[in-house]
C-alpha cells in the first residue's frame, strides 16, 4: 500500500503544480489584496485591514446584487434540475429519435454564454416585440429585459435553456447505471410509472442529484457571461431608495467595480462571494450526501 501511495502522489504532481500556481497562489494574493488599497497598477501597496469590507453590506448596490444572486440561484437550481430531469426521462424512454434529442438538448450548452446571451437578447428585444406588435398582444410589447420584475425570470429561462442539456447528461448516465432488473421487477409487481420513478429511480440516483445540484448552484451563483451579454445589468430599479441595476449579479458587480479601477474593493467583494459560495455549497453537499444510497 505504501508504494501505491507514492505512485499516487507522483501522478498527482502535475495537477497539483498547476492547481497551486494558477489557483491557490492567486487566491492567497487575492485575499491579501482585498485588505489593501491597491489599484491594480501602482507598485506601492498599503495595508488597510478590513476597511474594504466595512462598507460592503451597507452599500445598496452590493446588497441588492447579493440578494438578486441568491434569488437567481434558487430559481435556477429548481428550474434547471426539474427541466433536465424531465428531459433525461424522455431521452431514456422508448421514444423515437432519442439519440437525436440527446444531442439536440445538449447543443445550447456548447454555444457558450456570450453568444447565447446575444442570441436571446435579440429574440427577447426584437422578435418578441415584433410578434407583440403584429398580433397586438400588449403583454409582449415591452421587452421582458426592460422590466425590472421580469428580467430575472428571462435570465433564468435562458440559463435553463443553456444548462438543462448538460445536467440532463448526468441524469441520463445515472439512470442507465441503475440495474434494469429493479425497474422490471417493480413493473411486474404492478407499480405504476410515477411510483417507479419516485420510489426506485430517484433514490437510486441520489448521487447524481448531489452533483447536479452542486453544479447548478455554483454555476448560478457565479453567473457572469450570459448576464453580461443578455442584460448587462439592466434595467435600473430602486432599492433602499437608491437606483441600482436590476439584474446585476454578484460576479458582474465585482467586474463593474474592478473596471472602475477599484481593484481592492472588487477583490473584497470577491472574497465575500467566495465565502458565501463555500458555505452554501457545503451545506448543500452534506444534506444531499445523507440521502445517497450505497449499492
Amino acid at each position, binding site marked *: 500500500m505504501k508504494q501505491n501511495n507514492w505512485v499516487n502522489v507522483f501522478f498527482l504532481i502535475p495537477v497539483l503544480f498547476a492547481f497551486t500556481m494558477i489557483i491557490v497562489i492567486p*487566491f492567497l494574493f487575492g485575499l491579501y489584496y482585498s485588505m489593501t488599497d491597491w489599484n491594480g497598477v501602482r507598485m506601492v501597496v498599503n495595508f488597510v485591514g478590513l476597511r474594504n469590507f466595512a462598507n460592503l453590506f451597507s452599500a445598496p448596490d452590493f446588497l441588492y446584487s447579493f440578494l438578486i444572486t441568491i434569488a437567481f440561484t434558487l430559481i435556477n437550481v429548481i428550474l434547471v434540475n426539474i427541466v433536465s430531469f424531465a428531459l433525461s426521462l424522455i431521452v431514456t424512454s422508448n421514444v423515437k429519435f432519442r439519440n437525436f434529442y440527446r444531442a439536440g438538448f445538449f447543443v445550447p450548452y456548447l454555444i457558450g454564454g456570450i453568444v447565447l446571451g446575444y442570441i436571446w437578447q435579440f429574440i427577447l428585444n426584437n422578435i418578441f*416585440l415584433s410578434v407583440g406588435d403584429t398580433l397586438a398582444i400588449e403583454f409582449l410589447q415591452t421587452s421582458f429585459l426592460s422590466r425590472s420584475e421580469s428580467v430575472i425570470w428571462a435570465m433564468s429561462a435562458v440559463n435553463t435553456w443553456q444548462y438543462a442539456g448538460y445536467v440532463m447528461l448526468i441524469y441520463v448516465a445515472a439512470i442507465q447505471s441503475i440495474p434494469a432488473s429493479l425497474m422490471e421487477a417493480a413493473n411486474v409487481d404492478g407499480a405504476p410509472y410515477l411510483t417507479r420513478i419516485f420510489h426506485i429511480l430517484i433514490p437510486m440516483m441520489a448521487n447524481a442529484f448531489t452533483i447536479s445540484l*452542486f453544479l447548478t448552484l455554483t454555476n448560478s451563483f457565479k453567473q457572469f457571461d450570459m448576464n453580461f451579454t443578455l442584460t448587462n445589468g439592466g434595467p*435600473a430599479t430602486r432599492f433602499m431608495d437608491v437606483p441600482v441595476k436590476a439584474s446585476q449579479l454578484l460576479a458582474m458587480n465585482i467586474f463593474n467595480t474592478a473596471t*472602475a479601477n477599484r481593484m481592492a474593493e472588487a477583490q473584497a467583494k*470577491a472574497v465575500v462571494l467566495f465565502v458565501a459560495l463555500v458555505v452554501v455549497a457545503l451545506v448543500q453537499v452534506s444534506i444531499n450526501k445523507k440521502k445517497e444510497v450505497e449499492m
Partner: protein
Amino acid sequence: MKRAIISFVLVVGLVMTVFAGGSQQSSSSTTAGGDKVVTMYQLKVEIKDALDAYAAEYSAATPGVTVSVETLGGGGDYGGGLRAKSQSGQMPDIFQIEGMGGYEIWKDYIADLSNETWVADTDLGFMVDGKVMGFPVAIEGYGLAYNADILAAAGIDPATLTTRSAYEQAFQTLEARKAELGIDAPVAMAASVSGGMWWVAGQHNLAAYWGGGLDFDDTSVIEAALAGQMDDARFREYAQYVQLLFKYADQNVLLNGGYDQQVGAFAQGRTAFLHQGNWVDPNLAQLGVDFKVGYAPHAFTNTPQTGLYLFAPSWYVVNAQSPNAQAAKDFLTAMATTSAGQRFMVEGAGMIPAFKSVTLQPSGQLSQALMAANARGGNYGVFFGMLPDGAGQNVFGPIYDLFAQDPDNLDQFIADMKAAIAGLPRM
C-alpha cells in the same frame, strides 16, 4: 471525519476556480531583427485600419524603427488589457489615457512631453502641474445631430433651436407629423443600462449641466459637485431638457438599444435627431447616409445657448520606463508635424486634429460642423473626466435608466441626482 475534511477540501478547491488575480513584475526589452520596435496600444477601434497603415508607412520611411499597433476598444476592456500587459512585463511604449483617472493610475509610466515640438501647436495637451504629459488624439465633440431633410420637410429651421422651448415646439411638431415624415420618433436617444449606453446619458448629456452656457474652461459647477453641492435651479432646467429628450425618444432604442440601434435609427431616417458625437461619421458613411446632417446645441435653458461641446477624448502617452521612449516620442511628433501624419489624422482616420497648423478638412459632415463651430468659438467645455472613476457607469447610469422608464417623474430624478452628487466626495 477524514471524509468530511476531504470533501471540504474538494469543495473549496472546486469553488476556488472562480478566482484568480495575481501580480508579477518583469521587464522586457523590445527589439527584433535589429529594428527598434515601438509598440503602441490604442483604443479607438474606428481608426484601426488608418493607424495601422500610417504605422507601416512610418516604419518604412524611418530606418531602424518599426511601429507596431495593437487595438482593443469599443466594447473591449482597454484598461484591463493594459493592466494585463503591465503585469506580464509587456507594457507598450505608447498607450492611451482618457483623463485624470487614467493618469493617476498610470503616472509611474507616463513621460513628460513638455519639450516636444508639437506642444506649442495645441491647446488640448494633457496638462499636469504645468507640464504636458499627453498628446491629444483628436478633437471630438457633439451637440444634437439633426437630419436637415426631415427638419426642412417639417418646416423647422435648425438655427432657431437655441432654447429648451424651441426644442419642445420642434419635438411636438415632429411628433404630430410622424407618419407623414416617415419617422418613428423625433429623437434617437439612448440611456439604457442594458445597452451599455450610460455614457451617452450619464456622461455626455450630463456634461451639459457641468459646462453648458459657461466659459470654455469654467469648471465651477463640477467643482461644486465634487464637493457634494448641486446647483438646484440650474439642475432643474437641465432635468427638464433630459425629460424632453426622453419623452420624444424612440422608446425601444431608449430603453433597450445599444450604439448600433441608436445610430441605425437615425441613419435610416427613422428619427430626426441623434444624441451622438462626430465619431459617428464613419458609421453614417457605412450606413449610406445621403441626407444632410448638422449640429444643433444642447440648449437646456430658455436663455439661448449656441455652443457645441468640444474636448480631447483621450491622449497618447509615452511609457517613461521603456528604452524606446525617444523613438515613441519621435513617432508622435511626426504624426503631428509631418504632412503624412496630418493626412493620416484627417483623411485616413477622419478625425479633427487638435493642432492649429493643420489645414486639411475632414470629410465627415458632423466633423465639418464641429470644425466650423470651433472656428466660430463660444463652445462649451466637457468636464466629466474630472469625476471619480465609476461615477458615470455605476452611479449616474442607473439613475438615467430609471428616469427613462418613467420620464414623468421629474422630481424623483432630481432627488436621485442630488443624492448621487452629495455622495461624490465619498467615492
